[in-house]
């Protein structure tokens, strides 16, 4: 009948049209725009708004510079960085703070997260303290950090780690609750020890949650390092920003911040990449290996 006719009409060539019937998420028109184009469009839109705001003159240049000024300064900073001048050194110091801070945050956050997620002692007795500590303005503790760790990068690393630890704790702890009853019962019947259940079941199951914490933490660690440098004694990028800010050199402040956010982006992208490789089954589930 008609179905057959149609099908005959399609013939061998129909295969190619039908190959697209694979099950995928629906995509909106936004998704079909290539990434580079959409990023650029966003960027230009952002620039335009910025330009208009500054051109209207409602905002003083010492509060918000024009895109052109910042653009010029981006070049200056880039030249300085490329020449291996003092800014490169400062960036290197900040990168070190971020790296060590993140490493410590992962270690401590993961351990505490396991304590909180695994034991009701952790969840009910330790967690309130952790929440309380994390609510406290870290700035108030800066003198303590300095008194103990000095003005070198150690105190900045500590502050950075401090801020990044909490998200990792919460993520890890939430992840440990993600395994379902069936899987838990299975482990039970296999005679798995608590430790084995943790390592071989709960941690793998909870990896997506853990990575959520890690991503938030990766951004927190940057903020922490810069805050630390703002508070005193640093020789890193934060200090450069602070000097520029105190001299009301706003274009410099903005361009330094932009370079800084590149470090943050790199760190975040790295975490994302690690997640993709570690939680391959999650991805496979979503994207249908086809």
């Amino acid at each position: 009948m008609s179905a057959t006719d149609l099908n005959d009409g399609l013939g061998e060539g129909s295969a190619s049209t039908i190959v697209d019937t694979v099950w995928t998420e629906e995509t909106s028109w936004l998704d079909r725009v290539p990434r580079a184009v959409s990023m650029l469009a966003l960027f230009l839109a952002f620039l335009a708004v910025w330009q208009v705001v500054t051109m209207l003159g409602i905002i003083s240049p010492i509060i918000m510079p024009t895109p052109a000024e910042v653009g010029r300064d981006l070049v200056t900073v880039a030249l300085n960085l490329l020449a291996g001048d003092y800014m490169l050194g400062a960036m290197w110091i900040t990168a070190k703070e971020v790296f060590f801070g993140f490493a410590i945050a992962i270690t401590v956050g993961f351990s505490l997260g396991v304590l909180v997620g695994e034991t009701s002692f952790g969840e009910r007795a330790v967690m309130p303290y952790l929440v309380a500590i994390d609510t406290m303005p870290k700035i108030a503790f800066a003198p303590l950090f300095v008194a103990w760790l000095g003005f070198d990068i150690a105190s900045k690393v500590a502050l950075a780690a401090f801020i990044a630890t909490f998200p990792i704790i919460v993520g890890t702890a939430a992840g440990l609750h993600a395994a379902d009853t069936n899987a838990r019962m299975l482990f039970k019947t296999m005679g798995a020890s608590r430790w084995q259940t943790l390592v071989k079941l709960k941690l793998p199951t909870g990896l997506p949650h853990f990575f959520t914490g890690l991503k938030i933490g990766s951004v927190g660690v940057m903020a922490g390092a810069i805050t630390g440098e703002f508070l005193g004694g640093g020789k890193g990028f934060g200090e450069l920003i602070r000097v520029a800010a105190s001299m009301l050199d706003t274009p410099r402040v903005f361009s330094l911040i932009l370079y800084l956010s590149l470090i943050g982006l790199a760190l975040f992208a790295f975490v994302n990449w690690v997640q993709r490789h570690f939680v391959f089954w999650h991805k496979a589930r979503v994207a249908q290996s086809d």
Partner: protein
Amino acid sequence: QTLKDITFVQPSPSSINSFPIYVAISEGFFKEEGLNVRVESVNGSGPVIQALASGQAQFGRPGPGPVLNARARGVDVVFLYNMMVKSSFGIVVKDGDSFKSVPDLKGKVIGVGTADGAEVSFARGILSSLGMQENRDFTFLTVGDGGMAAAAFTRDDISAYAASTADAAILTYRGLKLRDITPVEFLTYFGNGFAVMQSTIDKDPKLVESFGRAVVRGQEFAADPKNRDRVLADLKAGMPQENEDRDFANALFEQVLAKTIPLDASKGWGYQDPAHWDRWHKSLVETGSLKQPIPDLPKAYTNAFVETWNK
């Protein structure tokens, strides 16, 4: 009669450091001028000027250095009233240490509160006038304020600290005995005072007049020892927590008050000596805090209102 709302912005949350304002508020001097003053505290002179530039506040109390910096960037902010007529900064060392004068600090680390605050320009000025050069004869370490300075001293990370006199007084009062080794000739490096945007002066000179008049009255009232109890009560009303401990508040107040009494009272409260401005300017340029000299230095300050205020 309805009161006009204005905002005054100060670089730190202290009623004592801005005492004329607080006294004038509590004693009703502003009200008599038809003004309702609201005080806001930000974090340093830079943000004070930014608040003025954005129109969020009409009057502020920045240091002279940041004002010149802002002018160098085209912001028409004007220093209006010299409040801390005597230098409100100093170089202090621990009481027990052997340093007698600034040259003894050769090869040492000097702590500063902020990366490039007024006290840094000040300290740089002193040191360079004595032929000492940064990173050769001494180094600066940005340690922050208060507790951070205490931590730095106890760790022996710094040998001296360039600070505002109020900060040093607080440290001393809290048990870290400090000694001021600032040479007297640097007293003319005046400290923070009241500033305003030129546009405000142009638009509403009356406002500037009445503001200053009330400030002068507050200053005079506070300077009179008879009124001490009232003044302390006024300060407490403005910032209760800072003035909970009366002895502490009084000690600090005396320190600050002393810095506001001019050597030559005849010019009136708030008067700014152009020579002192030149000195500041020169020092800022020499030490690199200003990239190049400001062409219109006299426009950075005005004594135009001093007479009216002091009538």
